[in-house]
């Protein structure tokens, strides 16, 4: 039995925000996080978002706006996302199982804010901004600030996440997304890395974006590593240094835990591999 006392499915955003203004309702997107956790956790009033048409992807001159209710399967398939935000579609392709990707949404992944949410490192590399609306206000918060802790965000009880705006990176940018877990499917990340290398015309790295999931309490950009890479030419030595720096940052921030002897060398090696893969251009270019 799941503790649902009320279910409503409004047909418009206005209606949904009116209902939400009471502060009593829980937004329900794909339910792949919410429903397994709705058992024995106290009663809930569900506000189903599926009637709000929040699943669209739109392209503007400088950015791409992805509707919060776009499913992982849609992110894998959508022509605009696969071309301009290849990291995001790759991350979505690695979520859970076919059944979960068909149902789970980008918005749910971000609002649930698990430290191992797979789309988050990809979004951070694109300077993604969350669009939050309530009955009488609308605000934009960078995803990096939106997620405030493990399973915690700054969303209000009367707010909906309607979309996420991503900035495509200038060309040529080489990307890579690696996810490490215990097995291949139904795989909750032990660690995930999103890497973008923006190249100048002469084969050097003009700038880099590197984000890590499930490494820190909250997924985040590793700007220290990005600074190390900027202006250098790709080499095995450089990438090994970057890996070592990432491992240092992890220990500094998360402290030494039971998993540290495993995670330290693994993070270093994984980042080295992700950077090499990106630099090879084999993984994807945008």
């Amino acid at each position, binding site marked *: *039995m*799941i*503790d*649902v*006392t*009320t*279910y*409503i*499915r*409004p*047909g418009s955003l206005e*209606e949904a925000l009116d209902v939400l203004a009471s502060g009593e309702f829980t937004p*329900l997107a*794909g*339910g*792949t996080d919410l*429903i*397994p956790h709705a*058992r024995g956790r106290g009663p809930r*009033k*569900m506000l*189903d978002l*599926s*009637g709000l048409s929040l699943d669209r992807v739109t392209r503007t001159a400088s950015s791409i706006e992805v509707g919060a209710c776009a499913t992982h*399967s849609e992110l894998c398939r959508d022509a605009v996302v696969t071309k301009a935000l290849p990291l995001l579609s790759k991350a979505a392709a690695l979520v*859970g*199982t*076919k*059944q*979960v990707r*068909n*149902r789970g949404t980008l918005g749910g992944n971000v609002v649930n804010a698990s430290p191992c949410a797979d789309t988050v490192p990809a979004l951070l590399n694109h300077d993604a901004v969350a669009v939050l609306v309530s009955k009488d206000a609308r605000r934009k918060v960078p995803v990096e600030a939106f997620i405030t802790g493990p399973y915690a965000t700054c969303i209000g009880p009367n707010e909906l996440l309607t979309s996420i705006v991503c900035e495509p990176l200038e060309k040529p940018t080489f990307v890579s997304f690696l996810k490490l877990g215990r097995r*291949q*499917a*139904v795989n909750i990340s032990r660690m995930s890395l999103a890497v973008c290398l923006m190249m100048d015309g002469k084969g050097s790295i003009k700038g880099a974006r590197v984000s890590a999931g499930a490494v820190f309490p909250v997924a985040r950009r590793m700007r220290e590593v990005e600074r190390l890479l900027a202006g250098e030419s790709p080499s095995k030595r450089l990438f090994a240094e970057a890996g070592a720096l990432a491992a240092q940052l992890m220990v500094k921030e998360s402290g030494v835990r039971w998993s540290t002897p495993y995670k330290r060398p693994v993070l270093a090696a994984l980042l080295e591999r992700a950077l090499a893969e990106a630099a090879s251009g084999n993984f994807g270019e945008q």
Partner: protein
Amino acid sequence: MKGPQDSATVARVQVSFRLNGVSFRKRVPVDWTLLRYLREGLGYYGTKCGCEIGDCGACTVLYDGVALNACLILAPQVDGVDIWTIEGVAPQGERGLHPVQQAFVERGAVHCGFCTPGFVMSTIALFLETRNPSRQEIKEALAGNLCRCTGYIQILDAVKTAASRLRDRDLKKFVSRRR
């Protein structure tokens, strides 16, 4: 707003949906999953209840033409949806099995049978996307279905066999009118 105006005070919601090609109009409990409603509400026990957290795939149904876990859907969410379960897979009014079921039998892909309905529904969903899937595509499509006895080799072989025999009319009824 869909559903009755009094939905804020009652524990049931009126929904219309299609199940295995038949239209239903029912008042469903808001705190039941689709899985429970299929089994205990309508008596369709073919869809199996395994983990109830989306891991095992035993409750996979075809939902508007794609594979979903019925344990992760609330019963009131089915309004307007076209659902197919294992009970509707074999051709109606004819004898015999659907080619996917037949291939599972012939290839020894059924042992205790608990996971089989879920695997069959995931396989049909895969064929609705691609008629000639590679081994990798089959693995990806079935990764959300667990089998604890037969093992996966026979199941992969069964899907290959089914693919080689499938005709358009074997898929026609499963194509959702909503997509």
